[in-house]
């Protein structure tokens, strides 16, 4: 088991290394942050001064080593635009993103899980199809458009909800629906399939034989067991929502990490983009690692496989 954990951890580190090289290289291949700010009023020497200040005059390997070394000490570098440590910025924005992501997860649960349960219990019924269509709707409509349509209806026409920004619970409703709905479809599929699998298992059959009424069995036993993979997926979804809710945060002027990233991309704020992507990468890799180890713990056969 120890060997398994070591091997998996090693793999995770290699993945993070590849991730960091990839993001490091692609941000640099797409342009020069100094050119981005310099409108023609700026002079060549001003640009050079900025390049030097931002460390962009050094060679790529040197820049990468500095970046990698800093990441190991928990320092994600300093944003060009904000001139603040990226980690400070990240944690400043984290509460807003977390709030939105949790609310969106809740929305994805209340749409995805009931739809998944219904379609597993009533396979191929009208209910099944209706549930699927509702859950898939969030995936079938581009988020930016769904967001704008909601603003139009609920803010401009009906005047029920504020258009944008962070505030009370009312501010949270539209962005979390727009974000959460997208993830409902994946929850629907997973809930459905893990429910089907559990319901085919021996002990559920046994429970039925004991004469418990069907719905109770489903509700209590099946759901409890089907929940594990569903929660795993929800965890990964949560990380994605926290770090990459770019479009929804832009539409709703939500002061979260996604917008930080969005601006970083278009401003070529290298440290910011690298930092946020690495941070998200670490979270995802950690979750996957934990899951791998947990599953190996439960099922010893996995330890032997690569």
């Amino acid at each position, binding site marked *: 088991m120890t060997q398994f954990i070591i091997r998996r951890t090693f793999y995770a580190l290699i993945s993070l290394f590849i991730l960091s090289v990839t993001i490091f290289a692609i941000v640099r291949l797409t342009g020069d942050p100094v*050119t981005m700010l310099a*409108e*023609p*009023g700026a002079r060549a020497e001003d640009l050079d001064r900025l390049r030097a200040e931002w460390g962009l005059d050094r060679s790529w390997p040197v820049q990468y080593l500095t970046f990698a070394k800093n990441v190991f000490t928990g320092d994600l570098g300093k944003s060009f635009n*904000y001139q603040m440590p990226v980690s400070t910025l990240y944690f400043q924005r984290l509460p807003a993103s977390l709030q939105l992501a949790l609310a969106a997860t809740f929305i994805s649960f209340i749409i995805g899980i009931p739809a998944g349960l219904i379609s597993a219990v009533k396979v191929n019924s009208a209910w099944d199809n209706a549930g699927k269509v509702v859950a898939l709707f969030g995936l079938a409509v581009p988020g*930016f458009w769904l967001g704008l349509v909601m603003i139009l209806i609920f803010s401009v026409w009906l005047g029920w909800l504020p*258009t944008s920004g962070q505030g009370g619970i009312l501010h949270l409703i539209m962005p979390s629906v727009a974000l959460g709905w997208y993830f409902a479809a994946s929850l629907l599929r997973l809930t459905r399939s893990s429910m089907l699998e559990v319901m085919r298992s021996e002990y559920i059959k046994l429970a039925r034989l004991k004469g418990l009424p069907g719905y109770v069995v489903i509700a209590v036993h099946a759901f409890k067991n089907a929940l594990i993979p569903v929660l795993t997926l929800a965890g990964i979804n949560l990380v994605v929502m926290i770090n990459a809710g770019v479009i929804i945060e832009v539409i709703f*002027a939500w002061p979260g990490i996604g917008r930080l990233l*969005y601006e970083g991309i278009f*401003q070529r704020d290298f440290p910011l983009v690298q930092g946020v992507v690495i941070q998200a990468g670490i979270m995802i890799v950690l979750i996957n690692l934990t899951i791998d180890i947990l599953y190996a713990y439960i099922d010893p056969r996995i330890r032997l496989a690569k």
Partner: protein
Amino acid sequence: MPGIKITRRTVLTSAAFGATVLSVPFVRGARAAGGVVPKGKMTLAWHTNIASRWLDPQQHDGTASPDNFLFAIHDGLIKNLRDNKYGHLALAEHFDFPADAKSATFRLRAGLKFHDGSPITMEDVKWSYENYRGSSAKVLHEKTKGVTIVDDRTIRFDFTEPFLDFPILMGTGNLCGAGWVVPAKYYQQVGKDGFLQKPIGAGPYKLVSQVPGSKLVLEAFEDYYRPVHIKHFEIIGVPEAATRLAMIEREEADILYLVEGQLIDRIKKNSKIMLAPVLSGSWWLEFPGFQDPKNPFNDKRVRQAVSLAVDRKAINEAESGGMGRVSGNWINNDVEDALDWPEFEFNVAKAKELMAQAGHPNGFKVDWLTVVPNYFSRGERVISQLKAIGIQTRLQTMERGVYLKKMEGGLKEWPGLQIIMNATRIGGSWASWYEGMFKCGGFQGQDMICVKDLDAKFDQYQKSFNREERKKLAEEIQRGILENHYFVPVFRHAFVNAIGPRIKAAKWQDVFPTITSGYAYPWEDIELKEAAAAQK
């Protein structure tokens, strides 16, 4: 000329009113300044995210974005305000710039304070100037022989040679921040990064709190030397245009920046919202590599034909709701020594004739037309207009960062036959436009545009300390570009903003009075309607 008048010896402009009132003892600033008590709350929906560096004049990046924020939080010795391009007396009550341009002397108003209550001293002014490291820092520092504190309200700058551009640099908020005063001790204590978290300035609004990048919460500074009318002022970054529009409709925002092309016409129908079409960037066509004799655009007749084929009025109608301006010169007339030039003719028949004379009766194919991102629709319009004279081309789109990189890369990034629809807005003087956009080897000229005789004249201009000669050269050079159609000016587009119903304004210029900017400053002058001011 509004602004600084220069006579044989010196001319002193003074803000007598402000100075007298402020010198009355025992009266606190806000009430002293015109008896106005700031009330109510105003919200500005800013059109991008808010970069922290814009809050620090010391790091001015030379673009027209920081000034929106500098004018709220900070103040300069002199600045651009209303119709004054750079000579409005702000912290200074006298500005003395002798005709020989070898020195400049400022005398500050009495009793000036920073937001933390500490007085503005001459050391602060000197330190701010000497440690300034933003745009144009090098030229300022190289030409400055010394900064002398004459007395506790007077400071003198001595130059190594006549420095005619000094007032422009010091006083143009969207060009340079050296004349903007920060508290030296505090700045050194917290460092440049710390300063961005909690900037302290001398402007009409002090920063209460911020979410870096997306929100600034400001409050009226009671000790400001001019009356500040609105107590609470929030700036929120809202990148999505449709969301900004919804905000102003719901009165969640009072002023919004940047209503884009097609929306303009529709908003006109909403009687509650006032549009503020501020004349902004200038747009023109350029032909990278036209100096090569093999390039069809090397022929003046072809360039002129292009100019004749562009229906500028139609473009202005469609792209700026008719609120831009079909201008003659590609250099905006709100900068020093920009040449006035009549509107260019629209005449397809004549254009065809010229094409035929140049040996292209059926036109020719151009590989790409590229337009400054993301203004793709105006590129599409030009393409369809050029079809009339047989010039066939396609629109090349790219993301903004890529475009800027290619522009910096020069001709090798623009292979084959290309047209670029470029645009800019630069503050200061015509020379910055020439240097940045046209000069061979310049920021965007690179090796794409090289006209030797004009560049030679420009060198002569820059070396000259003679005002008369400079003026003459400026005119000759601009005339040379326009008569030869090296650039084909298209129009000056409108940076269209909107004003919500809570703001007191008879016309939009009441809220956007500053001609050198697309932004709504001076902030302290904006007032709410009474009902709105009384709202909690």
